[in-house]
């Protein structure tokens, strides 16, 4: 099982009923796996759809919990700058479970000279606003990533709030950037 497939499997195993994504080259294989397992193709399936920006994702997927489902967002960590107001004033403030998986940038394996400026402080920023953050990297295997993503979704439902999983793909079978 690839790391990307593990993340996708973990999202479904968490009970996600709808997934929205903002593309990155790193998460593209995750989207491919999600779409394939949901009977779709070319980045779209009945329960998996693209979104144009991260704050939208917090609104669209956060609203899923109002109907008793669980929304999930797949994105890149530099998008938390865009998403922060929506994340805090909607799903966090309204106590709505939401599972977010984001690949990390700006550290090992990075080529871009500026993306670290937003990506490196993301865990601290999220923790400062009260969003639980779970970090994954090369030190655990794909099965652990799957189980962690699944349990993060369970945690979101149990605690009525968004939970973020950050995954560094450096030295895994995935692509950093």
């Amino acid at each position, binding site marked *: 099982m690839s790391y990307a497939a593990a993340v996708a499997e973990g999202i479904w195993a968490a009970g996600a*009923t*709808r997934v929205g994504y903002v593309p990155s080259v790193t998460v593209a294989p995750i989207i491919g796996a999600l779409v394939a397992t949901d009977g779709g193709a070319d980045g779209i399936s009945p329960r998996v*759809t693209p*979104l*144009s*920006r991260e*704050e*939208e994702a*917090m*609104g*669209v*997927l*956060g*609203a*899923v919990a*109002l*109907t*008793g*489902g669980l*929304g999930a967002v797949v994105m890149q960590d530099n998008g938390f700058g865009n998403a922060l*107001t*929506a994340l805090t*004033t*909607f799903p966090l*403030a*309204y*106590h*709505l479970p939401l599972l977010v998986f984001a690949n990390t940038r700006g550290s090992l394996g990075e080529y871009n000279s500026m993306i670290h400026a937003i990506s490196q402080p993301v865990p601290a920023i999220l923790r400062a606003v009260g969003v639980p953050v779970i970090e994954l990297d090369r030190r655990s295997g794909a099965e652990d990533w799957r189980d962690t993503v699944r349990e993060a979704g369970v945690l979101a439902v149990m605690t009525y709030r968004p939970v973020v999983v950050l995954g560094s793909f450096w030295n895994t079978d995935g692509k950093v950037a």
Partner: protein
Amino acid sequence: MRRIDALDALARLTDRHPVVVTCAATSRELAAVKDSDNHLYLLDAMGLVGSVATGLALSLAPAAPKVVGIEGDGSLLMNPNVLATGGYLAPANLLLVLLDNGVYGSTGALPTYSAKIDLERLAAAAGWTTRTADTVAGMTAAFAELLAVPGPGFLYARIEPGNAQGVAKLLIDPVSITGRFTRWLRETYPAAEVAA
């Protein structure tokens, strides 16, 4: 048409619909004319009405009464992506009512872009079925027409600038809004009507 008159009419038109309403004066005035459990007041998240309404519409069965978003021009312009996203995902049961007064009504009446940018045409270009109105009667008729349209509907309503006087601030815990709104959804629509 004053905003509070438009909201008074919308409160009556939407009593069986999930309603997502934008923050500040619009939420306050809606709550003042009728505070109801089917109202999901977004107390701060400007620009998110279309996103939340789209997510709700996608998660409810297409046959359920349309999710109605009530948005302002300033708020829509903070996140105009919602037009493209709603048009692209095209849930059958989505209706966005835009109350356009041309200003940021809750923040000193500073101008929005709407004097120069045609927001109805933006919505139409993104795939929404649109109607326009500048009277309560016209808005009521347009609302009924858009309820019959499959796919996302966009009701552009021109209103006067200015806020109703003597309306209390909406000092309600958002968690209690979630509780009463989700309870209303569960009780009003059986599980079969929830797509998720």
